[in-house]
């Protein structure tokens, strides 16, 4: 009796098991990500769009907390339980995964030619030969301004440095608004929104960045000191007590309408749209002389790669090709204004401010933050030092030349460019 029951049970389970397999011809792909904020966008917009076109493939977006992501992903990869698709941090963190063999080489993936070399640089080996993640989004630097304030004071959007300071002078003379909302307390504002924002116009974007990596240029060269010289001129236009002004302080000063210009990253757009009660506009970092080529920092931020141990590499590749397509770009960029698709095909966005930012790609040359690739691998860390020195220059505690010299000395102490 007992054996019969057991046999029946076993038989039953095996039948259920096989039917289960028979029904599950659908392949399920799991996405590892730290962007928990984007969960609804993936669930409601992106994944249904993909599944509609690719029957038989199910996609599950499974994010973990940003602070735990790297550690959790590492553990899962080691245990072999990580998802098929892996959201990639830019530069060294993903490069390390690729070197360990956790990420597959996807250089030949259909759709990768939709991206410019700059866009791919964040997820390539140092020699640029193999790519391991599809670029998803970037953030662009520029200045967001209070349109109402500009109209009231009769100001025109500045395009050159001279006009920029003329505008700042007028706002300061009028006195209603703080000319520029930026603080040096949190340090990174000064470096990211200041130095990396206006810098590419001086070091000519990619040209200067590459030359710095190759060791042909030094941070003490005039084109690298010039942005510091400009930052030093910003001091009188910042609010009272800017030395103790934090990043949220700056955001609030601007969205409350107390400041006229905000040196920005495009990621602010989403927040500013909900907080600010006035019309906003944006302009790219002003060039030195009218007619100069403009350069913008179009910094690569998120990508997606293929787990080398995935059981369904073909389906996962199909998904990645879709991520590389203009379709994905349109949905993604519109759902998250301020995070721009890196796709070469221009994406039409509904948000006017985001559209303004992305339109600069047409007329300006794109580059990424100068300190991110290769140059921040050693001690002292160039990125962190740039934060400190940018703040020092604005505070007036270091001259631009002294700051540049400190950075170069620090870099020289560990970085030996391949000759």
């Amino acid at each position, binding site marked *: 009796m007992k054996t019969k029951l057991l046999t029946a049970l076993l038989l039953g389970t095996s039948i259920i098991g096989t039917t289960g397999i028979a029904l599950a011809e659908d392949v399920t792909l799991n996405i590892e990500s730290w962007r928990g904020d984007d969960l609804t966008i993936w669930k409601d917009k992106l994944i249904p769009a993909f599944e509609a076109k690719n029957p038989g493939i199910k996609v599950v977006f499974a994010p973990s907390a940003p602070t735990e992501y790297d550690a959790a992903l590492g553990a899962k990869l080691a245990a072999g339980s990580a998802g098929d698709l892996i959201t990639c941090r830019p530069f060294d963190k993903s490069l390390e995964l690729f070197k360990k063999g956790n990420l597959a080489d996807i250089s030949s993936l259909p759709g990768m030619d939709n991206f410019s070399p700059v866009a791919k640089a964040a997820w390539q080996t140092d020699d640029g030969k193999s790519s391991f993640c599809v670029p998803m989004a970037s953030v662009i630097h520029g200045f967001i301004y209070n349109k109402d304030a500009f109209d009231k004071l009769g100001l025109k959007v500045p395009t050159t440095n001279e006009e920029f300071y003329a505008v700042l002078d007028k706002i300061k003379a009028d006195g209603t608004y703080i000319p520029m909302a930026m603080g040096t307390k949190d340090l990174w504002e000064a470096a990211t929104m200041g130095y990396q924002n206006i810098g590419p116009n001086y070091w000519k974007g990619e040209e200067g960045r590459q030359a710095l990596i190759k060791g042909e240029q030094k941070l003490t060269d005039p084109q690298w000191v010039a942005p510091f010289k400009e930052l030093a001129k910003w001091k009188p236009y910042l609010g009272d007590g800017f030395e103790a002004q934090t990043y949220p302080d700056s955001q609030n000063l601007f969205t409350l309408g107390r400041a006229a210009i905000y040196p920005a990253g495009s990621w602010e757009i989403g927040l500013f749209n909900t907080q600010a009660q006035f019309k906003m506009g944006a302009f790219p970092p002003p060039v030195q002389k009218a007619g100069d080529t403009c350069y913008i920092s179009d910094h690569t931020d998120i990508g997606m790669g293929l787990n080398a141990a995935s059981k369904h590499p073909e389906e996962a590749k199909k998904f990645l090709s879709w991520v590389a397509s203009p379709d994905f770009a349109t949905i993604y960029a519109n759902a998250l204004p301020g995070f721009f698709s890196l796709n070469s095909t221009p994406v039409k966005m509904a948000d006017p401010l985001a559209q303004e930012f992305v339109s600069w790609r047409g007329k300006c040359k794109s580059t990424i933050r100068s300190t991110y690739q290769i140059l921040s691998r050693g001690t002292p860390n160039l990125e962190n030092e740039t934060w*400190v020195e940018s703040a020092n220059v604005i505070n007036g505690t270091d001259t631009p030349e002294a700051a540049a010299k400190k950075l170069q000395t*620090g870099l020289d102490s560990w970085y030996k460019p391949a000759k």
Partner: protein
Amino acid sequence: MDTETMAEETRPKRPIRWHVGVFLAPAVLVYTAIMILPLFGTLQLSLFRNIEQHQVFVGLGNFGTLFGDPNWSVNFWNALRNNVWFFIIHMLVQNPIGILLAALLSSPRLRFAAFYRTAIFVPTILSFVIVGFAWKLILSPIWGVAPHLMDFVGLKSFFTAWLGKEQYALTALSLVSVWQFVGIPMMLIYAALLSIPDEVIEAAECDGVTGMAQFWKIKLPLILPSIGIISILTFVGNFNAFDLIYTAQGALAGPNYSTDILGTFLYRAFFGFQLQVGDPNMGAAIATIMFLIILGGVCVYLFLVQTRLRRYQF
């Protein structure tokens, strides 16, 4: 006489006192597991270096880097200097104020003593995060109450962005820390003052020693051992400090590393920050130096100061 002979007879027969070991075991095991082993783990970690993904024994190499390589040593000496200043402010401000408050509180004529005692002690039990954040807001030049309050009394011109200026930031933060922890010396001294027997005070009064003279000549010598304990607690606490600086100024301890103390320096080295990758071995080396500094300080106190303190038995 009788009892002594009895004791002599029973001594050889006394069983091994297992219960002592059994009762000590939980504390010893827990303390070993969470304090002693990690301490030796840290010491061991500081003697290795990660070369090509392998831990390689380098002897005192990491300490050589820490003191010899200007990229590390400049930061280290800066952090140590700042830490010493942090400690000096506490010794000069926190402890005297603590003693003063305790002396006032122990005065029998003071009304609402219990209220003051609680109010002054409350910040001590607040989280660093709350204290750091609250003071950042209070001192904020944009929204803070400090500029307005100073305006009321006509001192607005003395207000500046204290947390953002190199020359003031560390002192300002030290004073915030003093504000938070002044309750501890106050409580310890208060307890010491209460334990002075009334007979001593009465005798002093009979001899005509009253008021300030009584404090200086009678009470202060009697509470000196407590002051010693407070000094060493302050020393250990200050050289282990980290939280307040981290919450108020961030891991880079700006502006220009002017508020960098050993704790924040260790944090950056060990865990890394932003694009900087953490280096547990160098972090362990810094932690070892911190341990040695604190050990040295405590030894100096124990062998040179405490043995010379006169204690009075009542």
